[in-house]
Structure formats: C-alpha cells, structure tokens
C-alpha cells in the first residue's frame, strides 16, 4: 500500500488545527465546568481514611467529602472517578477529570506535570503522646523516651533531630511500637498521623494527641497546568473551608484529630 504523504500531512494539519481551536474554546476550564454543570473529580478508593468504599458500596472518606464540598460551593453536580495512585495524574492530564483530590503530595517532578492548589489535608510524621506529656518541640524531648519503628522514615528523622540525652526505643514493627504505647510502656511515639487515626478509631480512650511535626507532607488538589481560573477558585474555596471550619469538621470526622493550625 502506498501512502500519499501530501494528503496525510494535510490531514494532520486539519486534525491539529481542530484540536487547537477546541483548546482555545475551552481555555477556561472553570467556565466549561459551570456550563456543563458537572465537576469531575478523581478520588481514591483504596486508601482510607482519604477514600474507600463504604459498607453501602459508595465511596467515602476525607477526599470524597472535600470533592462534595467543592461541588456544592460551585453549585454543580459531582461526578466521582475512582483512580489509583499510579493513574491519578494521567487522568488529569488527559482531561478525564477536572481535579484530582486523591491524597496527592507535592514534589518537583509532579510540579512540572500539573499545578497544585493550597494544602487541604494534613499528612505528616510527628511525635504523638498522652495528654500528660507536655512536649511541643523536638528539643523538649531531652531526657524523655520515644518509641519508634526501627528503620522507618520517622526513625531516621527522629534520630537526626532528637537531643542526645533523649532515649529512642526502636521496635521491630509498627504493631510493637503501638503496643508499647497502648500498654503505657512509653508515653511518646513517633509515627504517621494516619496510624494515630487508626488508634483513635479503635481505642478512642487511649488515642495519643499530636505533640509536634517531624516531617510534613500535606495533600494538595491537583489541577491541569494552565487552568488558572479553576486553580484560583479552588484555592479561594479551600481558604473559605479553613476559616468556616469545614476542614476542621472533616479532620475530626476522618482523622479523629484537629486540623493543624499552621497548614
């Protein structure tokens, strides 16, 4: 079969220009969302408490509630698109969704691919402890004992930052670290806020409270590069949610902990 190169090139030009004009027509993604009356959001379904499938087979979680809040504020219908952590950014880049609310952390590589909103959810490694312990910074650990899981990121961070006269007890796995806290062998543990949420859900009476942050990696909403109006709108809605206490409510509901002040 012989291909007519000239014809093929002409076809390519036509296709390209039509894509281009389509792009121009939809330059403002915020307007096209409002026109369509539907906000399409990529959410996790395998990562509680951010997103999971409830007993009624409906998605539930912090991210899902965040998406619901945004749709309500924009006064449009919400379409949830379940994604995995591997395909959530491609979904956004190919416009299958308008926003990614999927416990997305920020890093330089990702920042080249998409834009990030302001932080909307806490995700951090920190030191947690019983109410009687008054520790508010890593220096205050001087002379105290902290339990941590050996070789974990929090172990490395804590070993780097903790004063030399603090005792770091290293346990074999997360479970042993938690057991050491729950059996009151130690009153301070270093771990992730989700682990603490898990304790708070199962043993509300024994839940440790946040003392200070070791490493902060909050979650951001992902927006396609160039959707500046949409990004600005999302940011203003996040700011509103912070002041109106919406995020505080979501944090209490899903993380069993207050929304960090400095986020």
């Amino acid at each position: 079969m012989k291909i007519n190169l000239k014809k093929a090139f002409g076809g390519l030009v036509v296709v390209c220009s039509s894509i281009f004009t389509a792009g121009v027509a939809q330059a403002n993604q915020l307007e096209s969302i409002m026109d369509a009356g539907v906000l399409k959001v990529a959410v996790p379904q395998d990562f509680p408490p951010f997103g999971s499938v409830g007993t009624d087979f409906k998605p539930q979680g912090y991210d899902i509630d965040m998406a619901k809040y945004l749709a309500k504020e924009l006064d449009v219908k919400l379409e949830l698109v379940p994604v995995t952590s591997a395909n959530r950014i491609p979904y956004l880049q190919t416009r299958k969704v308008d926003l990614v609310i999927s416990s997305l952390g920020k890093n330089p590589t990702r920042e080249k691919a998409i834009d990030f909103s302001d932080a909307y959810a806490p995700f951090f490694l920190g030191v947690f402890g019983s109410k009687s312990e008054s520790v508010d910074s890593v220096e205050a650990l001087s002379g105290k004992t902290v339990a941590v899981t050996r070789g974990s990121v929090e172990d490395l961070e804590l070993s780097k930052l903790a004063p030399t006269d603090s005792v770091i007890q290293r346990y074999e796995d997360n479970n042993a670290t938690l057991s050491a806290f729950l059996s009151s062998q130690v009153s301070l543990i270093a771990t992730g806020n989700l682990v603490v949420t898990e304790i708070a859900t199962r043993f509300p009476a024994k839940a440790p409270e946040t003392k200070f942050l070791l490493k902060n990696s909050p979650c951001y909403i992902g927006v396609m590069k160039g959707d500046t109006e949409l990004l600005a709108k999302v940011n203003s809605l996040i700011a509103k949610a912070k002041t109106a206490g919406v995020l505080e409510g979501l944090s209490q509901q899903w993380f069993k902990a207050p929304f960090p002040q400095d986020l």
Partner: protein
Amino acid sequence: MSYSLDFAGLLPYLPEFIKGLKMTVTLTVISTFLGLVLGTYCAIGRMAKSKLIQGICAIYIEVVRNTPFIIQLFFIFFGLPILGLKFTAWQAGLIALVLNLGAYSAEIIRAGIDATPKGQWEAGKTLGFSRWQVYHYIILPPAYLRIYPALVSQCIIVMLGSAVVSQISVEELTFAANFVQSRSFLSFESYMLTALVYLLLAISMRKVFMLLKRVLFKSSVA
C-alpha cells in the same frame, strides 16, 4: 551475581555492635546466675514435703517449658502493665530469661538429684544433718557434676535466646545487627558478623564453664 562484600561499611557502626555485645554479655551473666539459683530451689521444691510448694513449682516449670519464649516475653512486657506491673524493656527481658532458665534448669537439676543413691540421704541423716545440710553438703555437689554438661548447654541456649529480647527494644547484639542492617542495608555483612560473635560467645562460655567446674568441684573431681 556480582556482589562484593563490604565489611568496611560496618566500621562506622562498630560502637553499636560493641554496645550490643556488652548488653548481651550482661544479660547472659545475670540471667545465668539468677536462673540457676531459681532452678535449684525449684528442683528442691518439686521434691518438698509440702504439696503446696510441690504444686507451685510444678505449675511454674510446666507453664514456662510449654510456652514459647517470645510469648512469655511479650506477656511480661506488653501484658503485665495492664495489671499495674510495669518493667522497663531491660528488666522485662531479664525477668523472662531468668524465668526461662529457671524452669529448664530445674528439670535438669532434678534429674541429677534423682540419680543420687538413697543411701547418701540416709548417711546424711545418720550424721545428724538437717534436710538443707544434706542437700548442701551431700546431694547437690555430685548432682551438679552429673548434669554439668546439660546445664552448660542450657545456659548457652539462654545466651542465644537472649537475641529474642531485641523484639522489645532491648539494645543487645541482635538489636544492633537489626539496627545496622536497617541503616546500612549491608544485610549479609551485619548478620554474618553477628553470627560470628554469637559463635565466639558460645564457645568462650563453654570454656569459662569448664574452668568454673575445676574450681567449684575441686574436691569432688578426683
């Protein structure tokens, strides 16, 4: 397969290993001593006249000998605090090791006592010795001598078993190995080195016990 061994990579962690070794030796020495004392009393207790003492010793020995060491350890460290009995990791590890050796050595020592001819008891009584004096001067020395090799092996098992207490964050040799492995990722090297150290420890422990035997049983070993 082209992996070149990097034992030099362990050098910065040498202080960890030495700290761990010290802790293992300390734990072993104290738990061996206390364990053997406990074992001796339990062995005698099992042959006591009082049914109550017999019962208590029997229950203790059977419970410890028929449950896994790590469960005993976790029970003492994670379980007992619920009842208000709180030990530090080091104390909990030591208690578990002593209880363990106590039960096993009690059975070994009892076998040694059992093998003592009845005539020696009668001889002791005839000399006007009390029950405790008979044990102390007549029964126990030859009993120990008979079961000495088994007892030494049991003590070495306890030394090797002390590796398990790393699970509750006691910073002994195995803890050091795990720690170094998780920082340097030199798994082969750190575990190889640790295994060697344990081997040397076990061999030297046997030597020390053989020396002790000569000192302790000078009169009995003709």
